[in-house]
């Protein structure tokens, strides 16, 4: 056979052709990572991964749909209904969980490529550091998302090049996985600078510190609350609370950090035209001028109910100014109990949830309850300049107020903590927290504040996770008798466990 091959190969020589293929019109590792612009576009490709609809929607609603604050519409997709109903038997094949898992790793693979290739490039060191730092941040963010949801997942630290590279062993322990996250965040923090102004869709040193603060708080509170597996991790609860405070302090209590701060105008935080506002430490980047969903966003339609298939108008805050929006698909519905549980006079209830819809002339079109509006809907994601279904709505991933509450919770009832929480409460039109609360009472108050301040921003379920309250605070789960052990992690998707021999 070998001889035949030689004869055949010599045949090829007769025509002077080699039968080799050369890529035309697409990039590969061989012709990329040459210039500064390449490095820039490579890091943008990492961020680009989180904008696909399979992931961008899940990042947000996976924090709310499976809790009691949100319910799906009657004919919602199976994946959404399964999540809402905690149908655990289906979770291994749940498409939302699968896509969430998959896109976390797509982001990681892209980040790995930057981390491996950019340092070898002959370009400006500052640019290199920034790109690599952002890649470390995105890798840490992705593992942080994976660790919270799935527990011990495989750790890929190199870009996947061959079939053999595609499967690696899962983390040996939660400690190992979280150590990787902290290591990446430290790298990110040391390599990046603080941006002069927020850059929507990009991150900087403050984002790394913020995520670090969130991660330490997550572990500290999880171990403290006795959450399964977390309680066996090797670290000191107080130590991690302190580490959380230290990181958060550099964000919320460092006068030299002036890029990010509270936005005193509650409505401005949710103004799509102000995505570079001071609250937005990390925000997904989308714009209505995009060509495909992901480049633009339809997330607004998920929260808004179907009304007439056309334009609706909402009143802005407590004014009579009418704000335009398209109507929606009634996918993410507000649970009535949650809506009713806000303190009286909370602007986050009165202004950020709509129970009345108007026409262009300000005539009432529909209202809740009872008048053609099936639920009071969250208007945090509307875009008044929508174009058809396309909007510039950008889901908020890390917000200054979030980190302020992280600081407060980790630090306990300190003066600074009170100051931060009370700012948020007063912005919402509420009275300050009672002074002199015990550490436990204060932390509980902060956690409650998170529920309302960060409502429908994709946080609640993770707060319940770290407080070991999944099995107690979610009606659907309680009804089925799920235990903390059952619920602490989602199962790793079956496609991974089927194909990855390292996962038993």
């Amino acid at each position: 056979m070998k001889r035949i091959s030689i004869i055949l190969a010599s045949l090829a020589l007769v025509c002077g052709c080699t039968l080799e293929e050369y890529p035309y019109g697409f990039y590969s590792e061989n012709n990329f990572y040459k210039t500064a612009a390449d490095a820039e576009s490579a890091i943008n490709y990492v961020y680009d991964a989180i904008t696909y609809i399979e992931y961008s929607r899940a990042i947000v609603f996976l924090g709310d749909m499976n809790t009691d604050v949100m319910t799906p519409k009657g004919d919602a997709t199976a994946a959404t209904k399964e999540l809402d109903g905690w149908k655990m038997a289906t979770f291994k094949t749940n498409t939302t969980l699968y896509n969430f898992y998959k896109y976390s790793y797509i982001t990681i693979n892209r980040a790995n490529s930057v981390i491996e290739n950019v340092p070898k490039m002959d370009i400006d060191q500052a640019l290199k550091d920034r790109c690599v730092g952002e890649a470390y941040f995105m890798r840490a963010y992705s593992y942080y998302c994976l660790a919270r949801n799935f527990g011990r997942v495989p750790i890929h630290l190199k870009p996947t090049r061959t079939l053999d590279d595609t499967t690696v062993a899962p983390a040996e322990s939660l400690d190992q996985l979280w150590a990787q996250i902290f290591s990446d965040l430290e790298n990110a923090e040391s390599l990046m600078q603080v941006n002069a102004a927020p850059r929507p869709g990009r991150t900087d040193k403050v984002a790394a510190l913020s995520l670090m603060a969130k991660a330490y708080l997550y572990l500290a509170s999880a171990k403290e609350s006795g959450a399964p597996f977390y309680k066996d991790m090797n670290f000191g609860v107080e130590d991690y609370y302190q580490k959380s405070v230290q990181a958060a302090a550099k964000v919320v209590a460092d006068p030299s950090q002036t890029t990010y701060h509270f936005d005193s105008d509650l409505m401005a935080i949710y103004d799509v035209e102000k995505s570079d506002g001071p609250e937005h430490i990390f925000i997904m980047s989308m714009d209505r001028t995009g060509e495909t969903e992901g480049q633009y966003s339809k997330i607004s339609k998920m929260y808004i109910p179907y009304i007439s298939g056309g334009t609706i108008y909402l009143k802005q805050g407590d004014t009579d100014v009418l704000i335009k929006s398209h109507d929606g698909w009634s996918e993410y519905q507000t649970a009535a109990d949650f809506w009713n549980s806000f303190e009286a006079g909370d602007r986050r209830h009165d202004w950020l949830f709509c129970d009345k819809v108007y026409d262009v002339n300000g005539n009432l079109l529909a209202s809740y309850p009872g008048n053609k509006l099936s639920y009071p809907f969250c208007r945090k994601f509307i875009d008044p300049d929508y174009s058809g279904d396309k909007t510039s709505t950008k889901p908020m991933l890390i917000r200054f107020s979030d980190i302020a509450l992280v600081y407060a919770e980790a630090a306990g009832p300190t003066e600074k903590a009170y100051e931060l929480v009370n700012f948020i409460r007063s912005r919402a039109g509420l009275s300050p927290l009672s002074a002199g609360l015990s550490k436990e009472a204060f932390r509980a108050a902060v956690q409650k504040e998170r529920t309302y301040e960060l409502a429908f921003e994709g946080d609640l379920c993770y707060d319940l996770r770290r407080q070991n309250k999944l099995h107690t605070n979610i009606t659907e789960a309680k009804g089925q008798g799920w235990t903390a052990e059952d619920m602490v992690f989602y199962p790793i998707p079956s496609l991974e466990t089927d194909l990855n021999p390292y996962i038993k």
Partner: protein
Amino acid sequence: MLAVMLTASVVALAQSAQKLTLSGVVRDTSGEPVVGASIVLPGTSSGTISGADGDYSLRNVPENATIAVECLGYKSQAIAVGGRSQINIVLEEDSMFIEETVVVGYGQMKKSDLTGSVSSVKTEALTDVPSNTIEGLLQGRVAGVQVINASQDPGATATIRIRGNSSLNGSNAPLVVIDGFPYGEAGALSQINPQDIISMEVLKDASASAIYGSRGANGVILITTRKAKGNLTRVSVRQQTTLSSFSTPLDIWRDPVLMAMISNEGRKNAGLVEQYIGAVNTNGVYYPSINELQTSWSTNTRWDEIVFRKCPVSNNTTVQVQSSNDKTMFTASANYFLDNGMYIKDTYNKYGGNFAVEHKIIENLKLKASANITGSKRHSNGYLSYNRNPIFPVYDENGDYWQYSVQDYYHPLAITNLQKDETKGMDLISYFGIDYQIIPCLNFTAQLNYKHGETIRDVYFPKKYTERGVFNDGYGGINNWKDDNLVVEAYATFDKTFAQKHHFTAMAGYSYENYSSRSSGLASVGYVNESLGNENLAAGNPEKYQISNSAYKTELVSAMLRLNYAYDNRYLVTFTARADGSSKFGANNKWAFFPSAALSWKMNEESWMKDIKQINLMKIRASYGISGNQGISAYQTLSRYGQHKYYNDGQWVTSIGPGYISGSTGQGGIYAVWSGIPNVGLKWETTSQFDLGFDAAFFDNRLNFTFDWYYKHTSDLLRQRNIAPSSGYDKMWVNDGEILNTGFEFTLDGVIFRNKNWNVGATMVFSLNRNKVLSLGNAVEAGLNVDTRTGMQYEFYGNSLEQYRAYTNILAVGKPMYVFYGYVVDGIVQSLAEGLDAGLSGDDAQPGEFRYVNIYNADRLNTINEDDRCIIGDPNPDFTASLALNASWKGLDFNIFFNGVFGNDVINTKRFSMPSNQPLRWTVDNRTEKYPRLNDNRQTKLSNWWVEDGSFVRIQSATLGYTWHYTKKDYGRKLRFYVSGDNLFTFTKFSGYDPEVSALGVYNGGYPRLRKWTFGVDFTF
């Protein structure tokens, strides 16, 4: 032609009759001179053979003698001299004659020497029905070849399958080879005018197709174009005018009152506000009440009359010139083809020119060259809404097109007049070759083929009336595509008989092919002024220009060898081999080797059978071989990065990195599929085929029979396997999976009756194929689904239908490809109790809903869920059969062609949405078990209720013609008038317009099948 040498030893006979010298010309029915015909006086040794111009001269012929004229390939004749000295003889070609030569890959063979399964089609008779492509006309004509003409749009192409489907992701279309040039996939050969083609050979088994190596697995269709012959000059003009009309009436609402009642009932049952209540709906459109419709309402627009042409007239004109002398022969032809569709302004135009020349430089060296140029223009204006609501007016009070909302993108006149979609194409196929007979037993052929094709598509979608235009504030685009294909081939053929009994032929050759294509697309949106449409793309918003381009290149190097050996014309052996080196294959598999072997035994040549006069041929054939399918597209073996627009810092930037989107998945295809990891071991699909054949001819070749049984096994199917998602990728191409096709086919062809004036014949073709998916590869890697009830492994195939929110077809291990998978319905729920009892819940349990059957009970849940699905139909036919009858009486000829497809299932998606079936609904007063109630909110499941028997028998065509040979001098000069009908009648139980749908068996409505009447004139002078 066999030259029969007669030794003429003239013996003087004592005879009283006068003797004369007889002379004349021997021609065939088309007027071509017949060279080498023997003209003899029976019972004597006196005779001669006709010369190069067909002329002959025979001395000493008695006045009252009868001469016998014989020539291989023609019917023998006995002619009474009757005192004439000049007799021009017209020999009728013996169409049943087994000695005709057929084209095989890289050579020709006597048909009787074939060891493989090859079907030959004389295409001339088929072209009485005009067609854009020749392949569409093959429907039902060749055993083992399935042709589906699913589309009737202007310029439509056909789907061709030889012996079933054998690939999942690669192509299933046979390779088309035009005069030795491997052109590409069959089905869309619009570049060659069918009237320029004289014959087609279909290579079906491996012995025949393996010579095409990595592209032979789906069979090969060889096309031979017309070349001049004989020593004459002739001009022919063929004109065809075709009138089209629907063969069945349109199924649309003529009575707005009934339509409105049906609509209201459907909405009422669904708990929705009724539409026809005499009120303005949310879009601001006033819908009259039923009462108003019955009394005062006047608008009843007949959209079909606006949308459809009354009787589209199409045209096909061909002019051919052929001329030849001893040294040079040439043909030239020009063609104008116009296909007007049923939709207004939906047309296809084609202009073609073909020029071929052959010149003998010296006696044994021929030069050949040809060029074929085709220009086409397609103005697309199809899919207009002919069933638009008749209460809608055409225009509003201002004379603008009336819209029911700004999102009304379906106004047929607005689309016709304002939207642009035009594709212009140009193709050049050229050929240059030499044919060098070095010594009598050794021939050398070299040829160079070059094909160039290009298309340019212009589109414009206006800001109003069209979805794309509204969305983009006007959308204009230009798409360019071109390809070039260069093939260089050379082969030598050795042919010699040793010791009279050992006939040996050998062919060895080499081929190099270089294919490249490029495309570019330009688009802009956001037009300020629309008057120029896409003529000035720069007028769009400069910030939103869209550009794209791509290129594709492949190379193929091959060597081929064929050895034929015949012993005593009784035992025949063929061996072929081809080695292919392809740039598409992975680095570890650059070369592929495809051998085949065949044996044949001509029993009729055995001494014990030779004397049975009634048997002219009896032959057994057996062959086995391996061929391939290169269904990989280029660059699958390279690692690949992707690129995407990302909105960064208030502007769009290009982002680049590992992984690219190679496809889409999920409901509506909204989820991306990520690829980019190379597979260096990727290779061709391999088909091994075993064929047993039997050929026989009886009664002077008046009855012919050909039978083939085959076993065709395809392995190494190209499939995409799943990759563990933690890799950051979804899919990767691998070779894994197997398909089996087995079947048999036969052709029975006979002359039923023949005399001086009459000739009646019939041809029957029968094909049966059984297809089975043997393996879909590693079940875990492939991520196959499992049917809980039976354990059957399967995956969904094709597209999901919104109507059922489900895929209709699956590929299942152990089942035929594309079977339907869904629920079972055994009737209609008659009461809520009955519905609940059946395991239904909610709205599904209401009276009038489908009564789905709970076929899976091991879950102990008395509910209908996904586990209750099963295979509910098979779109593959049990068998296909056709019958052609032809009769001629003097100059009159008539033929009729029946084509039938039997035992295939079709999903009729329109079974409950048409004016003809909606009124048959279930109501409280009409508690039928056949139709459900009207319910606009129903989420319909795909079930066997939607599956119908798609069997049909069609009177595919019938032609009546009259031919007048206006001069005795040249039989080929003639005038023929004919009328032919296409799709005259269809016998079927299928309830939609027509059951002939694509291979997946899903009927989507469309419009009725067209019946076409063609009036034709052929004039040759």
